């Protein structure tokens, strides 16, 4: 199988990963039963391969997370797990979906967010006083006396 070995520091949940090549494409044999999603590979020992945590298998056209170990004979065994995000990156990025949360929104929106840390038992209280109206306790002629009679 044609395998290219890489090292990556990108988070496992990153759709697109930054890859540093450790080797060029080379022929590596599978070890044990062949599994397209969880293949195991075996190759001769190489110090530079110890840094490998990522690989690409051309025949499967997939990217994999790798864990390197050795067998009793000192050969390197690469236990791989498919990275669906990198493998199907273009399709994932351009497929319609419903975005529920995002960092790039930058701030809370009009969608209620129950995870926002609001203190439940405290409120900020402030007030706006209206422009002055006509009501006043200091009016000079503020009494009305109603009387029977008058100059009618």
């Amino acid at each position, binding site marked *: 199988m044609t395998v290219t070995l890489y090292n990556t520091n990108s988070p496992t*949940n990153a759709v697109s990963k930054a890859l540093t090549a450790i080797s060029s494409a080379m022929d590596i044999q599978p070890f044990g039963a062949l599994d397209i999603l969880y293949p195991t590979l075996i190759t001769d020992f190489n110090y530079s391969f110890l840094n490998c945590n990522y690989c690409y298998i051309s025949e499967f056209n997939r990217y994999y997370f790798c864990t390197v170990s050795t067998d009793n004979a000192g050969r390197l065994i690469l236990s791989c797990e498919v990275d669906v995000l990198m493998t199907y990156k273009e399709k994932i990025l351009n497929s319609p979906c419903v975005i529920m949360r995002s960092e790039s929104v930058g701030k809370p929106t009009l969608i209620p967010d129950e995870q926002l840390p609001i203190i439940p038992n405290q409120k900020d209280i402030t007030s706006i006083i209206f422009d002055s109206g006509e009501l006043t306790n200091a009016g000079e*002629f503020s009494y009305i006396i109603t009387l029977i009679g008058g100059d009618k």
Partner: protein
Amino acid sequence: MLPNPLIYGKPESWIDSFLVGNYTFEVTDGNSVEIKPPTLFNFGSEDAPKSTIYENPNTPLSTPLEKSIAYAGLGRNSPYNSIKYLYADTAGNVYTPTYTDEKSVTPFFLYEWDVSAISNNHNLRSVYRYNAKDSASVSRSRKVTAWESGIDVDEYSGYNSNLYIKPWTSFDLKSLVLCINVECIKGTDTSSQYGASKTFSLDEYMSNDQNIVDYPYLKYAEAVIYTISGDNKRTRYQTSNAVRGFNFAILDNLDVPTTALYSYNAFFRTPCSIPLWGMLKCITTGTMQEGQFDMVLGSPEIYYGTNSTTKGCASRFSESLAEELRMATACFGLFFTGDSGIATNGHFDDDDMYLGILENGIGNGKYSSGVENKNQEQWTWRDSNDSPFDPSKDIDDNNYSDTTNFGSVSISDAFVTRYAVSASTLEGLAKELYKSLDMCPEDVPFTEYSVSEYLVNSPIDCIVSVMKFPLNIYKYTSQISENIYFGRYKSGEFGYPLRRAVVPMFDLGSCTYFKHFDDFRDYTPYSSATLYIPFCGTVDIDPAEYMGHTISVKMSIDFTTGSCCAYILKDSLCVNTASGTCAIEIPVSGIDAYTYNSQIYKGSINFQQAEITANQARDRYTQLFMSQSSMKNFSITKFLKSVQDRENQLDNARTDLKRATIDMVSAAYSLQTTQIPFKMIGASSPATSAVMELSPRLILYRPKMLDTFNAEVYGKTIGYATLDNSTLSSYSGYTVATGIRLDGISATKDEQLMIESLVSQGVIV
């Protein structure tokens, strides 16, 4: 919306109007807009759907064209929704119309006709149905002379004139402008012809005062159609009925009186114009025949005429009548003006160019002018088919308004007089009142003196109420100081009378409710608000309802009762009210002499009656024993019976005595304990409200965030809530999505599940 293709064919089958040529017209910003000619549907063409009912000569006469041809509807303020029917009796007299056909919304359309294929005696307009038995409408051609008696109206029953109506299926609204023309007359003598008349454009008429002096009455008004006839040029299209032309028609059947002329199509006197006001006179000679009906638009005040050539209607011209004409024109949702020069080459955003405003495709008489025309939806339409008007759906013809109109009330005070006074005047009045008690002559009973001078049994009863209000009442009075009267007694103190108890309305101020967070935290349940209103308490304010709007408070105060009512407005619309009492009642104590006297008198009478009854009971009791001892003739049986009788009488007397004794004791008690009654005029109401703030205050309750909240970390680890149908590529950073559609992906089923799971837990894009 597009006209129904089953009736009016597909757009590719439409043909250009005879208004040929693609012209351009400048707008004031220097750009030119290209104006394409209207398209129309030709019922008689080979492309016309064969199933259309209008091709069928047997289609009932009263079948208007299908309404999908309408791009707008005539709403409120259109005279076509209240057409009046006017009858001329056989003597030729016309009278005020007694019947009005009311509608809420009337769809309409524009159309062309081409009568070159038929003889000149045929026309597509309405024709008098002279035969009274025939109550059907007319939508077919008839000979012009068919109004003469004896014509068989079915002579042309196989002739479907709908074939010659070519409705406009689409047109650029910038391809035509309506110009309001008015025909005005001189005379006022209703018994004869009104004299000379003259036709003006509306602005021409109103701009010269001499025109209004010489021709003060409006007789008829119409909207004349100007169409594009070249680059930056429009022409008033005029044609006779024998050649092609165009006009408008309404698409509703009319509820006409029997024997009235009827037509669902154009009612015009002048070719290529739309009647707006006056009698329509739907025959080519322009006169109305005796024994016939005519239709009237608008509400003329004067009807005149006793012969066919002099009949007419008129109203004295005024600015409000001019506005009525503009509103009637605006209902068509087209560009219009009152200036023929603007109609000829004015720009669409000139100050004197108007555009009727359509609300859900309905013109209700509102219009914009000048650059505001660019804000109307029609400005961006490619053509009339961009209109949202769908006459097949229920038409919302509600009269929406976002303004509350407050009225005014004043109450007559015929029996009392109110005075606005100061505190010092009030003290002076109290002293004057006590002084007046000493002025009673010694030989006159006090109550008699009081009734004579003060019109009441006690001077204190003159005072109906004394209230203190939280405002200076001076400006609501006559502002003329007058002597204050107790009944007929002039006190010598002065106050400002309120001749009529006005209920004033005044402002208590306003504020604008702005966003604070600009996100969900500004709204319930996270934020809330209450509005404190003086004397009325608090009103809950829903942030979602008021956010971004102005909250204002108005208050009306009833000077009679001291109650107040506050009105909470959102912008200009009153959405809530609250009421309370703002006046403090001042207590006034007094002695009610009349009540005291009457109670003493009543107690005395009761005592006398009780005494008499007790004496009578005692006498009967005593007599019984005396008669018992004086019996001389002895008989056992009689004796026993008499003893029994005596026993019964004794019991009754004993009861009477007991009852009478109780009455006497009770009456004595009443006399001894009759209290001098005090009358309390008014009661001291809590004045606590008066010490509160006298301006409204909007109190806002907002959520608090945890001090340790870090917006950047939150975004990277949790992300901000959003709800967007999009793709991950539209976002960046930490993103959570759901419902991802992976159609056509080459991944295995397990891989697809892995993708969905990872994306829903959050990925970094």
